[in-house]
């Protein structure tokens, strides 16, 4: 997966991907790698995501909403309660206004709806890593 040079980071960053779909994790992982990031952890549910987040302390967490055990919204709440500097981007097939506003009000830096294109995801990751806020 080739990205325009303007999106590639000079400095590597650590990323955790939380999604119950192996296919989704693989796809997002390719995007992260293509812009110079390193996938340092993968979670299949919210419980794994929280455990990995506080163990690895990644630069960014890419979080799905519909997951077994603990969904993305609850996961977001728990992580933000303990670390309000967390940089979390929600990537979900659910994109209704109420859900998006809820995620953003809980502290998500951005909300991407599936299906996405890789350039869109790359640009959002870059924006959140550089500016730390929703653009």
């Amino acid at each position: 997966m080739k990205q325009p040079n303007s999106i590639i980071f000079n400095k590597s960053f650590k990323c955790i991907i939380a999604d119950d779909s192996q296919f989704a994790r693989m796809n997002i992982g390719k995007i992260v790698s293509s812009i110079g990031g390193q996938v340092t952890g993968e979670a299949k549910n919210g419980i794994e995501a929280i455990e990995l987040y506080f163990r690895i302390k990644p630069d960014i967490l890419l979080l799905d909403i519909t997951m077994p055990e603990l969904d993305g919204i609850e996961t977001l709440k728990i992580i933000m309660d303990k670390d309000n500097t967390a940089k979390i981007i929600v990537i979900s097939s659910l994109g209704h206004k109420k859900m998006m506003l809820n995620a953003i009000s809980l502290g998500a830096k951005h909300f991407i709806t599936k299906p996405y294109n890789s350039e869109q995801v790359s640009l959002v990751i870059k924006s959140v890593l550089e500016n730390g806020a929703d653009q």
Partner: protein
Amino acid sequence: MRYEYIEPFMKSTIEVISKTIQSEISKGDIVLIEHNEINDDVAIVIKIAGDSEGGIILTMDTVTAIKISNRILKENFEMLTPLCLDSLAEIANTITGNAISLINDMGYDIRTNPPLILVKDNGVKNIFNVEIFCVPIFTRDGDITMNIALRTN
């Protein structure tokens, strides 16, 4: 079932599948079935709860499932692997999520669950005990059916 629930699912099915497999697709006439058997090899089931209950079942034969998953994964599998099935589940999940978002933006409150994958050996059945609206989708890799089984609470 409210028709306003059907339309978002049809729209989302067409949009997501055509974008995912990157080719034009078309849909056939909607058929209403009441029996309990779905005659296909592979089924992805997603349960729905809230203002409407039931779910959707995305079904196809094995050959179509292999072709479509190979196209998505850019692979050349000769049989259905767990990753193939997972890629199909992700399509069903995206269709459902997008459709539910359209419905919820109309003021309803519907929630979705993670997908369940069934293959013929395990029995592909209508587990929702409610009439099904079947939407046939024709792709260059074979036919898919989106079965919408929802009752209004």
